[in-house]
């Protein structure tokens, strides 16, 4: 096994980048995938839709308000020095920003590995490219990140045995145990955010904490009987239709025959849609039934 491979294709590539002092961006293909930005072989930023970035972590933690963030962001954008701007305004110390950025990078790498990175492509540094808003300076050693991600993946493997994975939608337990010490703030926030719809990643965004700590908290709550891990959802493949729905054949609807370029806003189209509006609770309309329209009658 190549070194770093235990976390997928991203591991060996990060180690290569470290050896070659790579400067540029790694595009991680996967669902959802993401990017890792490196400078001289050190990771300065990592972003993925699967994990909250530093902005979410700073804002949701209440350390910075939305107004303050917006003002600092506007002031910093010409130079791109958002961390210095946040510190200069006394909102959060530079060390505080660094810690949050480091947490966000480690969490993003874990998220990409946990969701499954398929392949990694390099893109050399481009002077025109917009830099990440909060780069870590001078960046974190890629070897350290690979080790940390591997450690987190091992922890996640233990949680998976409880049924807790990034693709589960946990729900409140049907009969939670009675006696229990009061939950700490993170547990309380997680318990409040769990509703059977949200995945651990959705909960992480809702409570403004990393995917990794939230996943661990869910596993703990499942072990204590307060949460049910829920049924795992299938990993989505390349963009295609939901299973169980017939694939639409081109022209099968005969829509082109039925609707020869209808004009917007005509009443006939609304009536067609109404055929299936009977099930959801639609508030009673004001009685202004659409009038038949001779131009468009059928």
């Amino acid at each position, binding site marked *: 096994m190549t070194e770093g491979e235990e976390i997928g294709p991203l591991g060996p590539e990060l180690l290569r980048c470290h050896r070659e002092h790579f400067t540029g961006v790694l595009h991680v293909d996967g*669902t*959802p995938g993401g990017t890792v930005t490196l400078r001289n072989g050190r990771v300065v930023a990592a972003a*993925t*839709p*699967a*994990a*909250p*970035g530093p*902005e*979410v972590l700073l*804002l949701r933690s209440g350390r910075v308000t*939305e107004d303050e*963030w*917006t003002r600092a962001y506007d002031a910093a954008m010409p130079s791109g020095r958002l961390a210095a701007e946040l510190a200069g305004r006394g909102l959060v110390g530079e060390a505080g920003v660094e810690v949050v950025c480091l947490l966000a990078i480690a969490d993003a790498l874990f998220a990409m590995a946990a969701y499954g990175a398929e392949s990694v492509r390099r893109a050399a540094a481009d002077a025109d490219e917009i830099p990440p808003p909060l780069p870590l300076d001078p960046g974190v050693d890629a070897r350290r990140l690979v080790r940390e991600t591997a450690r987190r993946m091992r922890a996640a493997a233990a949680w998976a045995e409880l049924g807790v994975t990034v693709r589960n939608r946990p729900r409140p337990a049907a009969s939670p145990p009675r006696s229990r010490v009061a939950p700490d703030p993170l547990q309380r926030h997680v318990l409040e955010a769990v*509703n059977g*719809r*949200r995945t651990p*990643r*959705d909960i992480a*965004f*809702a409570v403004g904490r990393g995917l990794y700590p939230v996943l661990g908290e869910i596993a703990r709550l499942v072990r204590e009987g307060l949460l049910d891990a829920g049924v795992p*959802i*299938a990993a*989505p493949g390349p*963009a*295609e*239709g*939901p299973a*169980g*729905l017939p694939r*639409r054949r081109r022209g*099968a*609807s005969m*829509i082109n025959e*039925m*609707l020869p370029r*209808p*004009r*917007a*806003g005509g009443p*006939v*189209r*609304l*009536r*067609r*849609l*109404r*055929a*299936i*509006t009977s*099930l*959801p609770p*639609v*508030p009673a*309309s004001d009685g202004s039934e659409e009038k038949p329209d001779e131009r468009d*009658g*059928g």
Partner: protein
Amino acid sequence: MSYEAVVAELLALREQVTGVTESAVAAVDGLLVAADTEIVRPEVISALAATALGLGKRAGYETGLGDLREVVIRCSRGYVVVYAIREEGLLVVVGDEGLDLARLHVVSRQTVERLAALLVEESPRSA
């Protein structure tokens, strides 16, 4: 039954695209058809989406930028994205700030195609 099929499309969209939290299908005038919502009020988001879609189309026409692709509203905590379903309906998608917008655009194109077929096929031809 087509209503279930529409809901199945909305559920599939939430499963396939990271960051999608809620969605609804409505007629182009904002009348709700089906929804997969948690916090937003389906009737309200449908009506707002219809207005946003109208504004988007109008803005595209006025500026000579061609047909509307979608309306993207970005807020500090997330997105509201509105797609037209042919000329007669709309799909509105709500996502958090981590929404995978690029993937949403890819997946939603196919969703919109299938929703269009569902919405029109099911209804009887008016005599």
